């Protein structure tokens, strides 16, 4: 392939992502072993996932359901007939020295991931396979180690591979893609999507080409990125590396590169495993997978509202901004919490303000989350109502909110316990105002002489005499009234 040498050519990246997602099923993909993270090594294993002689795989129905639901949520075509194939290669973390995967008949094809910006990134396919075990090297790599230990707990965990088309234009867009995908997956509850625990893993295919051209350049496959941040950094590094190489007349070679997060660089793996011929063929231990219409219809029925649909609905229904709605719908249970508060108090805008303001601060302060805090939506709604009714001051409301979030006590109870109720009765406040006017004639005079500041002094005197309980808005209003 001819590669441009001109120095003044600008290059644009072409990015496609392969995302591996461990499905949150009870048991593994092809056996009954429990599927949980963090158990002591080799405690979640059986003859089947250890690849013992004579063992056979049996498809986990739930994993198929989870994948199909993911496909449905992303608008993919779900294949009523698909099959599993064997991908053959030798590696010590693979008990059978082949991985059961799907080659030419994946469970879903097509579909797209909708980014927050509205752009859609097309998907190529989603297929189901089994995860491998984990090599734990004594040194930095297998070659550099005196020994390697293998933990097969992860071997056979259901793994879904989501392959995008190379339609991602920038590293930032890659991050948006991942975050949108993560949000959808956690909404439909098919995975923990924890990148640091490896339940969501991302490989990137990236090439660059002269801006304005349409031929694809030679790509690198980048692996070993452990956070969204490292995906962005690795992609930026690769764009720079490839652009520099092309600009200086070098040739890009197709290869696999690992991201080194500490050094901030990618490096060629150059391992001998690169020249694999996987010798795919249909797994004769499994029969083709057929899904009937009724099952598919039921799964479709069970799908929840998706994050971006919810976001759009919140904007329309509760009058919140796109930004607020975006944050409110990042997490499904938080979105549902918000909606319950908004419905109960009848003021979506206020519900959003509280959720994104004081509730959030209080949660952070007490190292809580909505899930771990005892607060219930009805309590927040009640708080919003009594603030609106003027029963407590804005300042007191913050205190009540904090107590409700930390302890789950009803707002009214907090108000009563702490005597936070505000005096909004005009007659009572009027009497206090009159007392203050009578006690401070010089302030009255200076206000009337044009010093507007004097009003604030009088407000302060009323608040002081009421020990902070007078409704400050009413105090100010009555003072203005009395002073003409």
């Amino acid at each position, binding site marked *: 392939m001819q590669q441009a040498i001109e120095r003044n050519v600008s290059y644009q990246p072409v990015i496609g992502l392969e995302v591996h997602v461990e499905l949150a099923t009870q048991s593994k993909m092809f056996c009954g072993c429990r599927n949980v993270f963090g158990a002591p090594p080799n405690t979640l294993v059986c003859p089947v996932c250890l690849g*013992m002689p004579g063992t056979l795989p*049996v498809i986990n129905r739930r994993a198929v359901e989870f994948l199909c639901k993911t496909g449905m949520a992303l608008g993919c075509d779900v294949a009523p007939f698909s099959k599993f194939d064997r991908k053959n290669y030798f590696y010590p973390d693979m008990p059978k020295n082949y991985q059961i995967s799907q080659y030419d008949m994946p469970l879903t094809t097509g579909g797209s991931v909708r980014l927050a910006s509205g752009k859609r990134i097309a998907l190529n396919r989603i297929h189901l396979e089994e995860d491998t075990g984990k090599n734990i090297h004594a040194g930095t790599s297998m*070659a550099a180690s005196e020994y390697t230990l293998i933990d097969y707990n992860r071997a056979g965990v259901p793994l879904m591979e989501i392959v995008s088309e190379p339609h991602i234009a920038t590293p930032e867009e890659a991050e948006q893609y991942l975050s949108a995908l993560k949000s959808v997956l956690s909404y439909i509850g098919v995975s923990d999507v924890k990148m640091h625990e490896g339940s969501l893993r991302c490989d990137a295919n990236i090439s660059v080409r002269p801006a304005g051209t349409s031929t694809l350049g030679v790509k690198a496959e980048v692996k070993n990125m452990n956070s969204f941040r490292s995906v962005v950094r690795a992609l930026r590094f690769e764009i720079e590396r490839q652009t520099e190489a092309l600009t200086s007349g070098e040739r890009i070679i197709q290869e696999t590169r690992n991201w080194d997060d500490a050094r901030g660089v990618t490096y060629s793996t150059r391992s001998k495993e690169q020249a694999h*011929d996987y010798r795919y063929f249909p797994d004769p231990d*499994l029969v083709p997978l057929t899904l009937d219409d009724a099952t598919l219809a039921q799964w479709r029925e069970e799908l929840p509202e998706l994050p971006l649909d919810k976001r759009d609905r919140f904007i329309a229904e509760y009058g919140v901004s796109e930004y607020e709605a975006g944050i409110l719908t990042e997490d499904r249970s938080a979105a549902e919490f918000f909606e319950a508060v908004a419905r109960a108090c009848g003021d979506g805008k206020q519900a959003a303000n509280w959720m994104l303001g004081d509730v959030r601060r209080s949660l952070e302060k007490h190292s809580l989350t909505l899930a771990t805090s005892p607060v219930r939506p009805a309590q927040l709604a009640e708080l919003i109502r009594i603030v609106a009714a003027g029963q407590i001051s804005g300042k007191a409301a913050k205190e009540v909110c904090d107590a409700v979030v930390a302890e789950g006590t009803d707002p009214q109870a907090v108000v009563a316990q702490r005597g936070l109720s505000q005096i909004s009765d005009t007659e009572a406040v009027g009497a206090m105002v009159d007392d203050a006017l009578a006690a401070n004639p010089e302030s009255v005079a200076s206000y009337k002489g044009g010093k507007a500041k004097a009003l604030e002094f009088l407000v302060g005197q009323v608040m002081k005499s009421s020990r902070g309980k007078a409704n400050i808005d009413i105090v100010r209003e009555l003072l203005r009234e009395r002073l003409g």
Partner: protein
Amino acid sequence: MSSIHATSLPTGHALREAIRRRERSAEEITRAALHDAESLQGPLHAYIRLLPERALERARRIDGLVRAGEPLGTLAGVPVAVKDLFCLQGEFTTCGSRILENFRSPYSATVVEKLEAAGAIIIGKTNMDEFAMGSSCENSAFFPTRNPWDTTRVPGGSSGGSASTVGARTVPIALGTDTGGSIREPASFCNIVGVKPTYGRVSRYGMIAFASSLDQAGPMTADVRDAADVLEVIAGYDPMDSTSVDVAVPPYASELPDDLHGVRIGIVAEFEASIAQGDAALAALYKQAYKDLERLGAQLVEVHLPHAQYGLATYYLIAPAECSSNLARYDGARYGRRVDGDGDVYAMFDRTRAAGFGDEVKRRIILGTYALSTGYYDAYYVRAQKVRTLIKSDFDSAFAECDVIACPAVSCPPFELGAKSQDPLAMYLMDYFTIPMSLAGIPALSIPAGYVSDLPVGLQIVAPAFHEGRMLAVAHAYEQATQHAAARIPAVRSEGARAS
């Protein structure tokens, strides 16, 4: 001590009845079988390992049930042998290979569990061609097994040990596996009944795989009734095997007639043309067998299997392809033999496999790896699968004309040790008449049909998928009318008698 039987042909059902009637104890029968197996190990080498403690412990348990008047299983107290590729919890399971020489299975195969649940007493694990690859039992990594009807000859393979010990009448029942003829050919060679059930009829869980889309476990027995009993016990859907099929298991043993009136039996024109070109005595034997079937009331019809001739070529692409992948797990990392790689894991894999596998296994792994490689996959594997479909539809057409097919099981009587071991192709040709049924996934059995130069020969009966009952019924009527096996005593016994 004599063998376990009073009459010349011990059967599982006769022993079971004797135990039921308290004429003999399971322990006594088991001891006799173990003793017989041990004394014939020298001339036959049928067993890789005997399991005396386990067997006697279980036999005593059966005797306890008899004394307590508890209900007894179909095979209560009957000594059986199993091919050494059926996993048995806590016991060595070698698959006839050095690579698994020290492998103890942590679990039991479904069929073994079913046998034991029915009261069968497993006395030992029988020799076999390594990973079930072979037709003479000479590919065992440990020693060859010999034919009880002539100890200078092979027992057939790969289930040679199972065939030899049943043929010698040490036990009435053994389990074998059949991938391209590995039950039927040795059954023919050792003068016993050998049944390959429909693919999916019997669970493969715990049966060490050779070629997953072809492997099937089945009974190798003294007579048809025993085969029917055993099949009834081991057949059925297993949730641990996705390829096992949920089709009701009929009571095979209660549907065994003595005549064949109204039965249409297909005679395969292509096979007859082929057998006519070989040994005249063998051809005459099969002609006689068809006449006997006709005499029993069957109507013979000519049928055609035009693609059967491609069976061998098809089989030797599909089976090696699957085995190349199935046997990849034997790498020394988790179990079995390991040869150190001096710090390089790939060197460990290579050396382990180089030392652990025999020549025939290596040959098939290389063949299969090649057939699945990029650029060859479509030309070999995919095309082979297409031919497989054609062979299957040949049988469908044939069964439109007949109820069962009768045909040769083998193209020759048992041959001498070493006669074919230097010529893989000649050995592969041994399965010419049995491979098409394996590819089609349909049931077939071999039943004693007489002798050529005093060497036993089997007749093959083939039925449509899941019609084992039909096939067993025909075999039973033929067996009752001819009594070929019961009429003679295996040579190893008369030799033994002379020696003592």
